[in-house]
């Protein structure tokens, strides 16, 4: 197969969103673009899934959302990490490190 799998791995979308919002509040499209840029196009985000995930994270209390103006004078819904969200990010980061390290060790061993 020559087309690399660019769908966001199931279950990592939350982590990517939280990580992206760690630096500054952002709107939905901004988050998608940032995820694509930083992953050099490995991850592509579908707007339906992204906005649903944002809604879910907001309900969970990890994000706060508010409409405000963008730098180029548009109104957009901005998402901001809450304190609970930061804690969740730490948890998920640690969890991800542990799992990816385990997978890496496994691959090396199979060599």
């Amino acid at each position: 197969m020559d087309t690399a799998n660019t769908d966001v791995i199931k279950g990592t979308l939350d982590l990517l969103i939280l990580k992206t919002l760690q630096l500054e509040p952002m709107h939905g499209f901004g988050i998608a673009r940032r995820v694509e840029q930083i992953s050099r196009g490995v991850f592509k985000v579908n707007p339906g899934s992204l906005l649903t995930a944002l809604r879910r994270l907001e309900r969970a209390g990890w994000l706060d959302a508010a409409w405000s103006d963008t730098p180029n004078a548009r109104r957009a819904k901005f998402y901001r990490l809450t304190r609970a969200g930061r804690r969740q990010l730490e948890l998920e980061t640690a969890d991800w490190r542990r799992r990816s390290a385990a997978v890496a060790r496994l691959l090396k061993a199979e060599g």
Partner: protein
Amino acid sequence: MSPWRQLTRGLRALARRRTADQEVADEVQDYFEQSVAAHRARGLSPAEAQRAVQRECGSPDAAREQVRAYGWENAVESTAGDLRFAARQLRRNPGFALTSVLVLGLGVGVGTAMFSVLDAVLLRPLPYSHPEQLASLSFPITPGDIGGSVSGPDARDWQRRSRSFSQIAYCGPNLGILQIGGEALTVENDGCSGNLFSTLGVEPALGRGLLPSDQASKAKVAVLSDALWRGDFQGRDVLGRTAKLNGVDYMIVGVMPAGFSFPYGATGIWTPYAPPPGEDQRGDLMLGAIGRLRPGVSPARAQAELSAVQATIAREHASDHLADSAVVRDYRDSLVGKVRPALEALAGAVALVWLIACVAVAGLLLTRLAARRRELAVRTALGASRSRLARQLLAESLLLGGLASVAGLGLAAAALALLRRFLVSRLPFGMTVALSTPVLLGLVGLTLASVVLVGLAPALLAARAPAQEGLAGGAATPGANQSRLRESLVVAEIALALVLLASAGLLLRTLYALRQVPLGFATQHLVIAQLQFPPGRFDHQDMARSFDRPLLARLDALPGVEVATITSVVPLERGNTMTGSFEFVGRSVPNDQCPQGDLRITGPDYPAVFGIAVERGRFFDARLDTPTSPKVMVVNHTFAARYFPGQNPIGQQIAFGKKKFATIIGVLADAHESAIAAPPHPVMHFDLAQMAPSDDFYPLATSFASLAVRSRGPSAGVEASIRAALHAVAPDIAPRHMVPMRQVVADAMGSQTLAAQLLGMFALAALVIAVVGLYGLLAYAVAQRTREMGVRMALGAERRDIVRLVLGRAAWLLGLGLALGLAAALASARLLAAYLYRVPARDPLTLVAVALLLAAAGLWAAYLPARHAARVSLVEALRAE
């Protein structure tokens, strides 16, 4: 997670759906616009940018739907939508809705009432600690014996010698008179062993309970029930105060918690068991014993052990002729064992009624589904998912179930009022039967079960049916098995309805016959007050002189009172009946013909108060009959006819023991005094005015009596006057009950009235269910066979033939059901025989009448679909394909 946020945001979205939707739409639109702008910034033309975004992100509509579908509020909303749709469907079809709700409501309501009884009697734990360890201890019950009673020495020996019980307590239930302020009040006063409360494992709410030391030292201490404390003592600080009980001062040392009762009702006062001197012998079987089994000991093992102990006791006291074994029963079983089989049978019948009600409604739903095939098929073709259709049909059943549970609640309340009266007279203590929380939960559970039972089959059918078939309108004929099953159910419903209708009819005829019996006494404007005297109250003063005469004089002087009297037992009063045997003076009677009569001790004016004629001689007269004049008696007609046939009974003498005799001075006309349905017993009245403390019958006269007062008009204010007169003459004597004489008569018909009402209710339910079941079945068949009808008409069949076709089927089913029902009614007739009076259990008139009623109702139910079938126009029927 933040459940609070989930809840509030969801609710906000529900409350302002449009705003919430708009916000999602705005956000999605913003996303796509920014996406396009970003592509344009990289140098693409507007059209190219649009295409690129479409390739990467899909359609904005799909994204919007995906985001909107998130959140629990969506499930609520679609369910609400389904329910609204279902409500519209039901409103469009009010006949169907009403019938289904009625039938389901009958099933659910009757079931709920039954469940609340089972809950109170068999399921709810008794108000004691570890009630499963408690057992009642008694001697073997011989036939004809009330049973259950032991003596103090027995119970104490058992406690000392038995190994199976950690404790054995005993209690002598009795009535006492409590004086609070100036008022006298009849209460349950139980004299109990000092270890009773510790055996039951219940701590008092206030103060202390009774202690073994109280019993040993014969302390005059008392513990109040919560109801007595809150009610008659108004929750005052009572600890350490004295209460006058049976004329003796007791110190109140404790109050039991709410809900505690032992052994009977909840309004009691407990005092240490203190028998009168010489009355605590082995022969005095007057106490109930209860023991706490040691952990792991079963009642059966305890019984074996206790029987061995009792055998030893019986040998040691051979002269007392004691039983040589004992019976140990689970305590709850000993209380409710007698009603358990009846309740379980009733519960079975009720479950059956519920089940056939559900089946009948399921049949109706299937019929309606058949009529809606095309609609459902169109909606499937337009893209409605099958699960969505099934959900909608279930929503309809849910709505029906909800309405039915409301109807059922009303029915359950009515049925409970009946059942409560039935149980109060049959249960040994005040188990409260009421619509409680577990019962309401039971109602909800039953409703949901009904919904599933009723709605599942149609929902599954709708989900499975292929769209093409429905669109083609082809009547997919139901499988032969399915229709055979439904037909047998309908036949069973008809048979059951016939049995119940026949039973209800027989009981109605019995009630009618009972009402026609001339009672022989008048009940109008007559009030009965049962009196309770403190033990020993009249031991040292002449009752007639100090109580009876002043009280009657005071009552007679009241303007509203016509005449009043006192008698030991009023006609048709239950309990308290005393039978005496006697000999004739100067006449020897063969041994096998031991003469007996019902014993009454009666004041003057008895014939006037009860409207009973004096046939011969005279009744008692205060001027002629005094304690010092010769003893006299008055008998009834039956007595005179049986023992002095063809002779004049006046002047004859009757002996009770040696040298004690009375002379008959009068004969009263017969009245139905012992039972409405039985011929009168021989009755002997002795004169209350002649009762001196030395008299043999004096203890009888001074333990209980009833005051009978005939007022001049409707007896509205009479009860207050009786209380006032009683209070003035003897403030320490309380009336136990005050009831109109009519009520006494009605209570004597109580078991027949209740059985008639219960069976009537069931019969009505069964009739409605059978009719609905038959209608549903035929209507379904007609809906399925529309084309066949059309073809028949096209081939020249008359409308008459079509009607005959449908009615023929109905007649066959009805005939089969009626035949089976008649057979069952004849077979089960014996069960009812004990309740019937002047009606044979296999009364042909009743059977024919109810069969005709059922047949008429069934044919009416069949006529509706038949008429519908005949009205189908030829064109319509053939185009239906």
